């Protein structure tokens, strides 16, 4: 079973797939998938992300593999759904996507042993965890200005039940920019696998239903520009589409990024 959350006709709905290009809302209506607004596919709790968790990507960024996972957290405003738009600030010179397998927690996990860890997984989705490298600094790196930006972490389209996916997932993943493949990898190459991450994290932070672990990205990150379409795919989980938008669309002027209007929204 795979489920989405969408906005349609004035309300938020759970939805399931209903054949080519269509989805079925919880209330029975079948609508075109292009006629809905796709939201992150579940109620998201804490967003936990991994850096340097594919050996090839770590090498690409000239880092040695870690002894301990490189984990960072994001705020909820970072999240957007499938077919959303992510802002590229005018002063950025290197903004890149990161296609990642996202693991959704289904039941509380506190000090869980590795052997029991996968039983705490509700399902999986796809994440596109954008980064703007211009803003990277060496203090609590990666800092939130790089990794917890409004609308710069896309999730979706579907939450695929763990029961329908082998444990651990053995899936190819890739990114296409304007239809051209720029990144590819395979989840078998995770440095720290999902069971390890659940054991590691749950030793000091209780994982709760809705918490999500973004497991890191393989090599192949390239710059994206305003107008680009970025598609992250994971075999059997779907394709997550995102568009890069410019400052003007967000009412951002040239005055040091501060909006000229004084509205509170």
């Amino acid at each position, binding site marked *: 079973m795979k489920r989405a959350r969408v906005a349609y006709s004035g309300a938020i709905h759970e939805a399931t797939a209903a054949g080519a290009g269509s989805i079925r809302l919880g209330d029975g209506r079948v609508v075109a998938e292009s006629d809905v607004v796709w939201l992150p596919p579940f109620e998201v709790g804490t967003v936990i992300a991994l850096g340097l968790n594919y050996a090839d990507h770590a090498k690409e960024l000239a880092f040695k593999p870690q002894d301990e996972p490189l984990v960072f957290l994001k705020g*909820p405003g970072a999240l957007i759904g499938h077919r959303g738009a992510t802002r590229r600030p005018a002063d950025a010179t290197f903004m890149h996507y990161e296609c990642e397998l996202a693991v959704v927690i289904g039941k509380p996990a506190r000090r869980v042993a590795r052997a029991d860890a996968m039983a705490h997984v509700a399902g999986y989705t796809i994440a596109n965890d954008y980064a703007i490298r211009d803003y990277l600094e060496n*203090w*609590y790196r990666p800092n939130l200005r790089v990794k*917890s930006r409004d609308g710069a972490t896309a999730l979706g389209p579907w939450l695929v039940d763990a029961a329908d996916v082998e444990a651990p997932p053995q899936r190819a993943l890739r990114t296409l920019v304007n239809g051209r493949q720029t990144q590819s990898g395979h989840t078998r190459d995770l440095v720290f696998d999902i069971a390890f991450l659940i054991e590691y994290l749950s030793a000091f932070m209780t994982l709760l239903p809705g918490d999500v672990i973004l497991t890191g990205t393989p090599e192949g990150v390239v710059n994206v520009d305003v107008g680009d379409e970025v598609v992250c795919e994971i075999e059997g989980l779907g394709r997550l589409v995102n568009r890069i938008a410019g400052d003007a669309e967000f009412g951002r002027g040239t005055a040091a990024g*501060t909006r000229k209007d004084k509205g*509170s929204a």
Partner: protein
Amino acid sequence: MAPFRLSGTVYAALLNHRRSLDALGDAVAAAPYKGAPKGVVLAVKPRQSLVAPGGDLQVDDDGEPLEIYAALGVVIGRTACAVAEADALDHVAGFLVVCDCTLPRAGHFRPQIRAMARDASCALGAAVVPRSQAGDPDARALRVFVDGVLARASSTSEQVRSTARLIADVSDFMTLMPGDILLTGSAPDGPRVRAGAAIAVEIDGVGRLETRVVAAAPRMRA
């Protein structure tokens, strides 16, 4: 209570006390840092790290000690997206006392959530003082007491970024929502305690928070 809910996200400004970088000396210019931070440095305090008023802080019995930090919590009252410094305080509903704790950290290069996002490590005060009654947020004295003895004293006047500047810089890339709480920073080298310690944090004009440090419960089975 003022018309907002404490159901948002808690963020903490890091390295926002002048002594934080001073304490590092020449190391600031050397690897891995290679210079003082330019942008605002933040941590997310996730939901399972938060301790409601009256609750206890947790530490592992057999592990490292807990470091205790006092912080002024700014409660957001109006959505703040890309606000100017001059308008920033208009988005504040009020202030509360926060006791934010970590394990000892290995420097400041990595986020170290094992030290900084632990279960029951960030205690929130019971009372939110409305902005109109709290006075200047950048002239607040903070005190940490351990077992009734004054252990640390500092002031928000010693911050690198003022409260308004922090809100402006954060909201440039991350919208702050009503109910979110922004901790404006703490002086470095908080006192280290173990299970059994009684903690109090006071902020002039904002209030006093009392909590205890208790040993965390043992392993749960799946």
